[in-house]
C-alpha cells in the first residue's frame, strides 16, 4: 500500500506480498484456519481505514503485523468478557495440525516442512509468534519489540528460549522420522 500525493491509499500488487506472512501469523495465533482467514481480512480492512494516519516513512510490514496482533487480542478480550471461550485463548480448537493414530504412517508421510509446522504449533503462543516473526518474517528485534509491545531485551531472551524449545521438539521429530524411514528401508 502506498499513498498518492493527495493522501489517498493506492493498492499495489506488492500489498498482497505480505499475505502469506500475515496468514501464517494469524494461524500461529489462532491455530484455526477459518479464524485466521477472517483475521487477515479484518487486518487489511483496518489497515486501509487507517492508511491516512500512516506516515510516508512508516514500516508497512511491521504495521500490518501489529494491526493483526492487536485485532486478535482485542477479539480474545471480547470473547473472554462474553465468556465464550476458555480463559487461555491459545487452547482453542487446533485444526491446523494433522494427526494420525499410526505413528509409523505419521512420520513416514511427514515432510520436513510439515514437521516444522507441527513443532511450531506445539509451542506456547508467545514462542510461536516470536519464532514466526524472526525466522520466517526476518523482522529485527526492534520491529518485533514494537509489534509485541515489549522491550528489545525481552525479544532476545524469549527468542533464545523459543529456539531452544523448538530445537528439542524438532530434533525428536526428525530423529524419529529418520529412524522410521531407515526401518522401512530395511
Amino acid at each position, binding site marked *: 500500500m502506498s499513498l498518492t500525493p493527495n493522501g489517498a491509499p493506492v493498492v499495489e500488487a506488492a500489498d498482497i506480498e505480505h*499475505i502469506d506472512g500475515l496468514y501464517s501469523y494469524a494461524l500461529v495465533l489462532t491455530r484455526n484456519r477459518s479464524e485466521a482467514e477472517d483475521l487477515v481480512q479484518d487486518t487489511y480492512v483496518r489497515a*486501509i481505514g487507517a492508511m491516512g494516519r500512516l506516515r510516508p516513512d512508516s514500516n508497512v510490514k511491521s504495521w500490518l503485523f501489529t494491526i493483526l496482533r492487536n485485532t486478535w487480542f482485542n477479539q480474545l478480550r471480547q470473547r473472554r468478557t462474553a465468556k465464550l471461550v476458555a480463559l487461555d485463548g491459545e487452547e482453542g480448537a487446533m485444526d491446523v495440525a494433522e494427526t494420525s493414530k499410526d505413528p509409523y504412517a505419521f512420520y513416514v508421510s511427514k515432510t520436513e*516442512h510439515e514437521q516444522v*509446522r507441527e513443532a511450531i504449533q506445539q509451542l506456547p503462543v508467545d514462542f510461536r509468534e516470536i519464532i514466526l516473526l524472526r525466522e*520466517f518474517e526476518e523482522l*529485527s528485534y526492534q520491529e518485533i519489540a514494537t509489534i509485541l509491545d515489549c522491550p528489545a531485551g525481552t525479544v532476545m531472551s524469549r527468542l533464545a528460549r523459543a*529456539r531452544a524449545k523448538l530445537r528439542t521438539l524438532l530434533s525428536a521429530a526428525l530423529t524419529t522420522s529418520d529412524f522410521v524411514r531407515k526401518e522401512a528401508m530395511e
Partner: protein
Amino acid sequence: MNACEEHNVQLYLDNELRGQELEDFRAHLSGCVACREQLEEQQEFSDLLHRSRPLYTAPHELRTRVMAAQHVSVSDQTPDPLPKRVLRLMKQPLWNTKFAVYPWRALAAIALVFVLGMMFIPTIASNARAATYIDTALTTHRSYLDGRLPLEIESDSPEAVTAWFAGKVPFDFRLPSSQVLPNDQPAYRQVGARLVNYKGSYAALITYAMKNERISLLVASNKSATASGGEEIRSGALTFHYHTEAGFNVITWSTHGLTYAQVSSVHTSAHQSCLVCHQNMADSRKFQEHQ
C-alpha cells in the same frame, strides 16, 4: 563485552550486532572454536526453518477476498471532513500573498468561511455521506457484476442470510420485507450475500435476480450511511431517494437504524422503477399517486 557469551552468537546470526561490537565478535570468532561450532549449529537450525518458508500459504480464496475488500475500501475512502480541510487551508502560508500586507483581510476571509461553513455544514455533511454511500453501492454492484466479489453464502432463504450476518456486521441486520406478486411468486429471487467493507467496518451485500436483471442491496448502519438527495418518493413512513448514476438506478432509504441502497440497471424513471416490484400489488397505489 565478553565475546564468548552465547547470546552473541544469536545476535550475530540475527544481524543485531553493529559497529565495534560486530568487529569485535568477528575477530573473536576467528580464534574461538567453541563459538564457531555454536554458530554452525545455530545456523543449521535456522536453515532448517528457512527451508520451510512460508510457514503457510494463504488460500486463493482469501487472496480474492482481500483484493475485493481492498477494491471496495479504496473506493469508499471519504474525502477529509470539511473542518479538517478548512484547518488545512488555514495552515497554508498566506504571507506570500496580498494577505500578508493586510492580515485583517485574511482573518476576515477565514471568519466568513467559518460562518458560512457553520450554516451549511449539516447539509453538506449529510449530502456527502449520502453520496459516499451511493458511490460505494455502485462500486460494489459493479464489482459483483464483474465477478470480483464472489458471494460468501448462496441461498434464496432470507432467514438463512439473516442468520449468516448475525454477529458478522456491527448492526442488527434486517432484510426489507420481500415483495410478492399476485400469483404468490416473489417479485425477485434472492441469490446470496457477502460482507463488504464500508468506512473501516462491514456492510452487508445481498444480491437478487429478477428476470435477466441482477440487483444488489447494500445494508449499513445509519450511523455511517445516510439516505438523502435525489428524487424523493414517499411510501407510508418511508422516503425513498432515487438516483441515476453512471447508467445505474440507485434507490436509498433508511429505516430501523439501517440504511439501504439498492442498485439495478432497470432503465426506467423513479416511479416506474419502484413499480417494477410493486406493480399489481396492494401498495402500488402509493407509488402511482406520485406520478
